Every structure is written in structure tokens, then in C-alpha cells.
């Protein structure tokens, strides 16, 4: 990639941004032209558009940042590659020079040796000559001495041996030839190695390190990665080898994972049989006839997560809102979730998405009297997962289920989470598993409501002889006290005495004195946060029984309890009858 391509890429990003702005301005004009029918929905639309633009811009920023860091990596690698080539050549030539100087030294040493041996020889000769001279001199001196002796008798005695010695000495041949020649032998140095080395500089080098490309958006699945890399030099490459290893934040895995590898001819490859929502470290080498390149820098790619699992039992809805909950579907955390929903029967044409949901729940505003179908996806840097199995949400009334994890152990819930049974068995205390969240005195259970301060209506069906408590309580109502006996719960209570039915409307342990002549078997409960009321009705007769006036400080949840063995069934999903909401 050269500078022009880089510039071109930046231009494309800028163009995209500009055209999107234009598009959004156009839709803005449309909206304004429609006329402000409803100021609040208009404001809502503008806010949504603002959010969309903002998130698009921040997406662009992220893209450009990624691109910039990729460029950096490329520049560094190119620099490194050329540095290496330089080093390579330098090394080669250094070797050649070294070899040459070695030969030079060797030859000089040999010449030196020759010189020394010749000199030694000549010196020896010189010494011998000197010795011979000295001997001759000595003889001559002694002969002269003798000649000078006056003693003729003695002379005649000594002269014969001396004369013999002189004759002997004069008869010796004197070698006057030089012992050595004056010529030097010139050795021809062995430069074949050097020639070989010079020739090998022009031979093909091993390739430079390739550069791993950053992960392309939406190229991964939950079990595979599409990996790409590039080569920023003119090297010939026969094949690449791609290596990968799972990286895990899981501290229980202390040893490094195994490295897997694959031989690939192209500059891209799809690696499969991977784990979802996992990070992999990848690097690649290039190989040609000369050798293997150094390994590229390691890139980290991430597989897409597994789809989440919606929890229909934990979803609650009302006329105009719903709280959706799901399980992540992945053991490791993901970046965010995306919720997609639309009305059933519209075939996805009216689908809305909510992105960047940080936790496993989402509060939605919806239209009343409709049925929606919802999916959720988990998102990480590798992209979004597949859609989860759908869940249907109805906004025809208040929908919720009994929360099993709050139920007193003596209660068993039906499969559909709408009926509770207090069985006539004496379970030993040791068999009951309590937790911080379960009621442990009152045989009670909580329900759930959308956390919105609106109006809610549900009904409870009871057996004739069921002694029950139904009402609402704060989510943190004391689990070791009875419903209505504290200031965090309000309930209607039915007590069966031998002579009559007794009804109490309990809060903080106090009840007004109220007699009811017709036993209500289907109780309507109506909660209105803004008016601060909790009302109870005999739903079959449309008869108002009692209303608590209370200012709820926090959100409340429906609560249900049985004081003796029996059953209680929840009926949800109906709109509050007309006689309740005037």
C-alpha cells in the first residue's frame, strides 16, 4: 500500500461521513415538514436521530483509529525489512572483506617465514666463514711466530707439524657458494571462497516478515476467523505458514495453549473449529527457497460470541413498557448486546434495534395492545452473534411470573410460573434450602413488574378455604417477617375462623376493621404509582373492597403468601377493567 492508496482510503471515509450527514439532513427536513403533531414524539425522534448520528461518528472515529494503528504497523515493518536487507548486505560484504584480509595475512606470513629462513642460513654461513678466517689467522700467526724464533733447534722441531697443519688447511676446499637463493617463492592465494561469497550476494534472500491485517468487521463467526495478512516488499514467497493460539483471561488455565498451524498459499485463510467469544493470537511466516522469514507481529482476533438465551419467565411487561432479561450464553464477558424487536405480523419491516446494551437486561418503551417478537444478539469486537431464539411480549396488560428464587421452600410453583401450592406435608426443616432471597417465615413469593411508575392490574384466584395474603412489597422487604407485618409491604389477608371469614388490609401490622359479606374468590389488585394507591376488588362482582393510600418510595413487586396449605393462581395480561380506571 502506498501513500496514494492511503490518501484514497482516508478520502473514502470522509466521503462516507459527508454523504451520511446529507442523508440525515434530508430526513430531518421530512420530519419537520410533517408538522408537529405531537411535540413529545417529535422530540423523541430528534433525540433518537441525535443518538444515531453520535454513535455513527464514534464508529467512524474507531475505524480511523484502527486504520491509523495499522498504518503504523506497516511503516514499522517496512523500516525493519529494509533495515534487515541493509544489515544482510553489510554482513555479507564484511565477510568477504574478512576473508580477503585473512588471505592477505597468510601470504604475508609465508613470505616472512621464507625471509627468516634464508637469513638464518646466510648468517650461519657467515659465522662459519668467520670461524675459518679466525683459524687461518691463528695459523698464520703461529707460523710467523715460529719463523721469527731464533732457536734453530726448536724451530726445526716445531716446524714440521705446523707445516703439516698449514698444508692441511690450505688443501681444504673453501666453499664460497651462497647457501640460499636470493629469489622468493610467491604463493598464489586461494580466492575461490571469496569469489563464491561475492556470487552469493546476488542470490535470492529469505523473505521479510509479513504484516498481519487487523480483523475485518463481521468476518468472523462463532467458530471461525477469516485471517488476512500482507507482504510489504518485493520478496518471492512460495507459501506462508499461519500459527494461532487461544489466549484466555481465565486464570485457571496457567499453561499456554497449544499452537496450531496451517500452510497457506494465499495471503488469507479461514481458520475453523474455534471456540466462540474467544481471543486468538495469530502470526504468520513467509517461506521461499532461501529460507523462512522472521515471524510477523502477533495480531489478536476474536471469534463472535454464541447467541444469548432469552428468559421468558423473567420478562415482564405492561401496557407501554417491557423489561427483557436474558442469559449471556457465553462464559466470558462480551462487549455489549443488541436487542431487535418488531410487531408480529410485520415480517421484520418495522424492526427496531437497540444497540450497546451493557448488561443482560433492557427496558423498552412499547405501544399498548400489541404483540412483539424480540431477539437479542451478543456483540464483541469480532462482530455480532447469531440471533437468539425469540420471545413474544404482549402489551395488552400486566404480565409477570412468580419468582422462584424468592419462594419459601414449602411453596412449589407450577410449570407456567403462575400457580403456587403450599402442600399439606410437613417438610423437615433440614430438607428446606433457604437462601438470602427466599422468605423463611411467611410462606410467600414475590412477582415482578416493569420498573416504571405507571398503572398495573392483575388478579388472584383463591380456593374458598385458602388463608392468603396478596398485595405488593418493596423488593427488599424483610424475608424473615410476614407480609403486611412491616412497613415494606401492603396486603389483603384472609383468615378463616370457625364462625366466619375475616379480612384484613395489613401494613405495618395494622389493619382497618372491615367486614365483607361475600367471599371474594377472584381478587383484582390495582396499583397506581402516580396516585399512590393500591386497591383490592372482588373482580367477579366489580366490588371495591379497600384502597391503601401510600406514597411508594421505590418500585414495588406483587407479593403472595399462603398461611395454610392451599393454592393460589395468578391471572395476568388483562387490561384494568373500566370500572377501576375512570
Amino acid at each position: 500500500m502506498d501513500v496514494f492508496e492511503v490518501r484514497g482510503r482516508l478520502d473514502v471515509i470522509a466521503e462516507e461521513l459527508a454523504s451520511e450527514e446529507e442523508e440525515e439532513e434530508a430526513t430531518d427536513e421530512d420530519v419537520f415538514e410533517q408538522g408537529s403533531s405531537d411535540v413529545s414524539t417529535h422530540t423523541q425522534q430528534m433525540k433518537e436521530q441525535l443518538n444515531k448520528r453520535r454513535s455513527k461518528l464514534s464508529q467512524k472515529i474507531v475505524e480511523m483509529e484502527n486504520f491509523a494503528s495499522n498504518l503504523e504497523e506497516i511503516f514499522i515493518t517496512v523500516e525493519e525489512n529494509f533495515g534487515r536487507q541493509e544489515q544482510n548486505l553489510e554482513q555479507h560484504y564484511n565477510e568477504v572483506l574478512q576473508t580477503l584480509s585473512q588471505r592477505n595475512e597468510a601470504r604475508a606470513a609465508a613470505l616472512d617465514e621464507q625471509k627468516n629462513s634464508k637469513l638464518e642460513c646466510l648468517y650461519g654461513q657467515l659465522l662459519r666463514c668467520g670461524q675459518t678466517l679466525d683459524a687461518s689467522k691463528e695459523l698464520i700467526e703461529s707460523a710467523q711466530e715460529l719463523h721469527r724464533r731464533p732457536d734453530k733447534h726448536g724451530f726445526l722441531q716445531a716446524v714440521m707439524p705446523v707445516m703439516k697443519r698449514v698444508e692441511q688447511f690450505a688443501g681444504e676446499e673453501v666453499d664460497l657458494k651462497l647457501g640460499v637463493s636470493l629469489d622468493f617463492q610467491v604463493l598464489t592465494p586461494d580466492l575461490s571462497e571469496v569469489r563464491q561469497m561475492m556470487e552469493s550476494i546476488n542470490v535470492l534472500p529469505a523473505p521479510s516478515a509479513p504484516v498481519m491485517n487487523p480483523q475485518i468487521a463481521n468476518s468472523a463467526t462463532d467458530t471461525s476467523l477469516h485471517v488476512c495478512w500482507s507482504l510489504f516488499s518485493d520478496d518471492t514467497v512460495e507459501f506462508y505458514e499461519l500459527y494461532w493460539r487461544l489466549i484466555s483471561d481465565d486464570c485457571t488455565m496457567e499453561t499456554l495453549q497449544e499452537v496450531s498451524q496451517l500452510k497457506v498459499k494465499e495471503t488469507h485463510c479461514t481458520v475453523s473449529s474455534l471456540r466462540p467469544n474467544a481471543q486468538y493470537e495469530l502470526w504468520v511466516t513467509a517461506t521461499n527457497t532461501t529460507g523462512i522469514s522472521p515471524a510477523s507481529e502477533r495480531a489478536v482476533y476474536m471469534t463472535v460470541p454464541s447467541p444469548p438465551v432469552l428468559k421468558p419467565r423473567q420478562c415482564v411487561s405492561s401496557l407501554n413498557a417491557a423489561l427483557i432479561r436474558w442469559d449471556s450464553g457465553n462464559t466470558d464477558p462480551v462487549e455489549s448486546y443488541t436487542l431487535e424487536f418488531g410487531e408480529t405480523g410485520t415480517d421484520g419491516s418495522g424492526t427496531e434495534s437497540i444497540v450497546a446494551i451493557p448488561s443482560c437486561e433492557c427496558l423498552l418503551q412499547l405501544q399498548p395492545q400489541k404483540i412483539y417478537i424480540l431477539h437479542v444478539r451478543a456483540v464483541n469486537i469480532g462482530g455480532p452473534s447469531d440471533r437468539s431464539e425469540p420471545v413474544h411480549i404482549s402489551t395488552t396488560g400486566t404480565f409477570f411470573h412468580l419468582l422462584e428464587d424468592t419462594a419459601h421452600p414449602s411453596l412449589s410453583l407450577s410449570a407456567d410460573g403462575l400457580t403456587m401450592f403450599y402442600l399439606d406435608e410437613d417438610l423437615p426443616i433440614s430438607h428446606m434450602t433457604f437462601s438470602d432471597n427466599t422468605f423463611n417465615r411467611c410462606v410467600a413469593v414475590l412477582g415482578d413488574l416493569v420498573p416504571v411508575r405507571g398503572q398495573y392490574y392483575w388478579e388472584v384466584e383463591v380456593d374458598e378455604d385458602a388463608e392468603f395474603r396478596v398485595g405488593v412489597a418493596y423488593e427488599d422487604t424483610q424475608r424473615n417477617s410476614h407480609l403486611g407485618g412491616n412497613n415494606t409491604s401492603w396486603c389483603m389477608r384472609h383468615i378463616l375462623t370457625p364462625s366466619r371469614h375475616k379480612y384484613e388490609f395489613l401494613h405495618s401490622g395494622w389493619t382497618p376493621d372491615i367486614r365483607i359479606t361475600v367471599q371474594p374468590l377472584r381478587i383484582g389488585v390495582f396499583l397506581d404509582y402516580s396516585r399512590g394507591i393500591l386497591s383490592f376488588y372482588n373482580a367477579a362482582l366489580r366490588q371495591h373492597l379497600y384502597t391503601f393510600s401510600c406514597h411508594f418510595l421505590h418500585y414495588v413487586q406483587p407479593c403472595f403468601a399462603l398461611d395454610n396449605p392451599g393454592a393460589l393462581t395468578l391471572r395476568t395480561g388483562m387490561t384494568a377493567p373500566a370500572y377501576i380506571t375512570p
Partner: protein
Amino acid sequence: MALTQVSSNKCCDGYQKVFEHDSSELKCKMKFAIYLPPKAESSKCPVLYWLSGLTCTEQNFITKAGSQQAASEHGIIIVAPDTSPRGCNIEGEDESWDFGTGAGFYVNATQEPWKTNYRMYSYVTEELPRLINSNFPADPEKMSISGHSMGGHGALICALKNPGKYKSVSAFAPICNPIQCAWGQKAFSGYLGPDKSIWESYDATVLAESYSGPELDILIDQGRDDQFLSASQLLPDNLIAACSKKKIPVVFRLQQGYDHSYYFIFSFINDHIKHHAKYLNA
């Protein structure tokens, strides 16, 4: 029948008026109070009949009960008649406060000297509604009835004796079982003579035991510190037992600290009007 307006005061955007007329049932001039809500100016409104207790006239309720606000909000006409015929000059009519003047007990008397004038039952159930329906923007199909003490007794018996006529009924500290209490026994023996079967025909507890008709929805408020409750004049337990047996829906509220006075009525009148509005405005 000619109505003469006695007074008119604007109240809560509507009008509290008092009218006088010649009653054919009671054979004397009778006054009644009527509250017309703002809605009455443009359309017909349902009517709540309020029957006052011993010693009251048409004034007590409209000056002490504070009913106009709720009536205005719910668009209900409230008619409050007097508690007995007046100025008939019957001997002994002023001797006691709990018999005769101001103590009509909402029966049609059979005994002399009461039987000519003391026909409050017919006045309340027949003559007054006819009068109201023809002179005011009243919806003739939408009537409810309520009252206090003796008026509570009156409201209960009118509803129980006329199944389907009243859309709803409520009462404050009613005399639930007159044949068993001193008040009832005194009044019934004076107005109705010795025939106990006639007495029973004006007793809410007895009527409840044999009621058959469209479903009722009865709201009763009773002050716990009501002296007449402790004096066994009111006997609500008897009514509750009868209604429990016959499955007549009643919500009976025993209100701690409250007595028999209009302060008690004032405190809970809104609940009662809301109770009636549920049926009258349905």
C-alpha cells in the same frame, strides 16, 4: 307540580338550591335540597338521594356534609329531602326527638293519627323522583340512594324493597335492625301498630334475609366511637350476618375514633359518592 325556589347558592361551580312544593303524599308543604353539578347545565345527570337522620331537616346535609365537591367532580345531582312532614299539627308530633317531627322513619304509617301525613316511604320512592325527573335535568334510569342513621335505614329498605330501582346503595351508621332496637320499636309501634309482619317489611336485616333481585353493592361506614352503636341502636352485626348468609355484597367499615356526627359523614362522603359514581356513570 309547582316548585318554588327557596334559595340558590353557587357551590363548586354548580348550584346548591332549596325548593318548596305541595306534597300529594304528605299533604303538606315540603322542602328539599338539590345540588346541581356543572355538568347539569349541558346534559342529564344521575341522581343520588340522601336521607338524613333523626332531628334533621333538608339543611343539615347540605351545610355540614361537604358533598358538593365530589358531586361536582363526578357530575351527580344530590337530592336531600326533609325527614318528616312538617306543620301538620298532629297531636304529639313534637313530643320526642325520635318520633314524630323529624323522625319519619321512611315508612308509610298505618296507624292514626299518622297515616294521613306520615307516608315518607312513598314520598321518597315515588313522588320525589317523579318531581325531580320532570323539573330537573335528571337521568331517570340512574338513581342511587344513601343516608345517615335513620336515613341509612331508609336507604337500605328502599333499595331492598325495590330491586333494580337503585343502581347502588350506601349508608353511614344506619339503623340496621329496627325491630330489635329501642328506636325502631318505638317508631314502628307508633306508626305501624302491633302487626309485626308490617314491621318486618321495613326492617333491612329481615329484608336482606329474603332479598332476591339484581346484585347490590352496599358500602356502610360506621364510627367505632359512636354512642348509639354501643347503645345497641344500630346493630350492624345482624345485617352483616344476614347479608353473608344471602351473599349480598357488603363492605362494612368500622372507622376507629369516629362518632355519630356530621364530622364523620364529612370524612367519608367522598368515598361514598365515588362508590355511587362507579355505577351511576357506568
